[in-house]
């Protein structure tokens, strides 16, 4: 039943692989041409940073997969909805394929990042501890972040027919802006409160694996458990909202 979606996932992963290979080549060339002769110094790099990058990429992939309902809506419903499975079961089987794809995307990206270090023999520069230790909280949030985007994008695009890519991309932009506004306290009073409220369904609110200028890991929600619950809630609620919309949709 999920074969078509499997083909789509496979194609996306092939593209990602191609992009990663090209990225590794470009980065390696850039590094090797910037310092001649002297051994390359990478300093101490936390693995968590690489994982955060991989999470970022797998979130993008998750968002692409999350547009699946909108893709079906663009003229394929008479085919998809006349199969011997209910609409809900169809979405579940397709999500199963997506989850595998998201994990593969994460692994591929992490492997690509590690391979740059390996090429220059600098694997020793990596540490699991340091400023950003790889602990359960980090891993938990990294696992849930793409899922939250998946659920959110599904919810936003479940009733649209095409154009989902723009909406997903737009959601990312808006999410980034919201986090920016909120963190920088750019709006006061009621607007500030409204922004903060909306920000609660913004996965970026719960996961900011980026590093500020002083090298510290910044996060909007410092309580890791709350962050994980928040991300999981977005994932589940978004998914449920998507299913509910698709249940009511007309071909």
């Amino acid at each position, binding site marked *: *039943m999920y*074969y*078509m979606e499997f*083909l*789509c996932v496979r*194609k996306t992963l092939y593209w990602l692989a191609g992009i990663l290979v090209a990225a590794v080549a470009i980065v390696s060339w850039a590094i090797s041409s910037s310092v001649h002769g002297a051994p390359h110094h990478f300093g101490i790099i936390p693995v968590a940073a690489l994982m955060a990058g991989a999470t970022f990429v797998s979130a993008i992939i998750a968002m692409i997969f999350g547009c699946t309902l909108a893709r079906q809506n663009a*003229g*394929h*419903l*008479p*085919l*998809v*909805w*006349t*199969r*011997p*499975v*209910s609409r809900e*079961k169809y979405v579940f089987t397709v999500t199963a394929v997506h989850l595998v794809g998201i994990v593969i995307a994460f692994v591929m990206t992490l492997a690509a990042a590690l391979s740059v270090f390996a090429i220059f023999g600098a694997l020793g520069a990596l540490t699991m501890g340091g400023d950003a230790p790889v602990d359960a909280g980090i891993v938990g949030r990294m696992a849930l972040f793409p899922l939250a985007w998946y659920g959110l994008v599904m919810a936003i695009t479940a009733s649209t027919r095409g154009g989902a890519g723009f909406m997903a991309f737009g959601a990312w932009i808006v999410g980034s802006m919201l986090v920016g506004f909120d963190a920088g306290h750019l709006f006061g009073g009621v607007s500030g409160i409204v922004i903060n409220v909306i920000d609660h369904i913004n996965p970026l609110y719960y996961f900011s694996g980026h590093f500020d200028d002083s090298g510290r890991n910044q996060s909007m929600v410092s309580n890791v458990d709350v962050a994980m619950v928040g991300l999981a809630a977005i994932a589940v609620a978004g998914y449920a909202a998507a299913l509910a919309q698709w249940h009511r949709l*007309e*071909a």
Partner: protein
Amino acid sequence: MTEQFAIAVSGLTKRYGETKALDDFSFMVPKGSIFGVLGTNGAGKTTAFKCMLDLARADSGTTLFEGAPLTPALFERMTYVHERPALYGDPRVIDHLDWTRRTYARYDAQRAAKLLDLFGLAPKKRVKNLSKGQQSALALTLAFVTRPDILILDEPASGLDPVNQRNVLDLLIGEAAGGATIVFSSHQIGQVERAADRVAILHRGKKMLDGEVDLLKADEKVVEATFENDAPSVNGLATDPSVRRVVRAGRLLRAFVRGNSDDVTRHIAALEPKSLRVLDQNLEDIFLNAVAASDGDAAAAAADLEG
């Protein structure tokens, strides 16, 4: 009682905003028969199929398949082909077939090969690179390849060249001869005339006529008379229940009659026309007549129409 019918549709009504796309549409399809739904574009044929198959929600009415409401499991034995192919663009012909093969237990690989050959479909071609006719052919192939018990086809031969149109009709008839139940919609009267046991004529969402094609043709006649001067109005025609419609155009009088036309013929003969004959009606005549009768009701005051 409804178990004997493969499909029993009753009272389907569907509004899109102000317009009624379907108005109390009912019909019964016996097992192993071919049912044609005939109507112009916009008559409501596609809406009817969507409502029957839960692709759209009817405002009222029910559809029963072998006496039971629709469940997903029924799609193991029932296929639907939409009027515009709902296929995916990027995957290839063979991908669609593989998808079908993995989804259905009854997939028939030999039949798939034969149909690909018949329609001239290259397996490795991406669907977006197929012509519209080839896409329609592929959609039909996917429908037939699972040996369904029930086939619901919306304009199955549209977009196909005449040779493939005939191929599709042959396929339908072959399936029906093997016991399948088929419902198809068309605006091409010739297809329905050949292939259908029963026909329902749909016009502006309403059913105009419903009956066995053979019997409709045997029943429906035109009594045509020419007069010396303008055709007179004929007493007794307006009240005769077998007279569906009377048209007067100058010297010509036409009475469209269902059933025994002897009484009507006698009434008209009494007025001593110059010529009088009773003509058969083919399905096109019956269709145009039914549609005109409906439009005529709406504009009852129009000249040359009475009865």
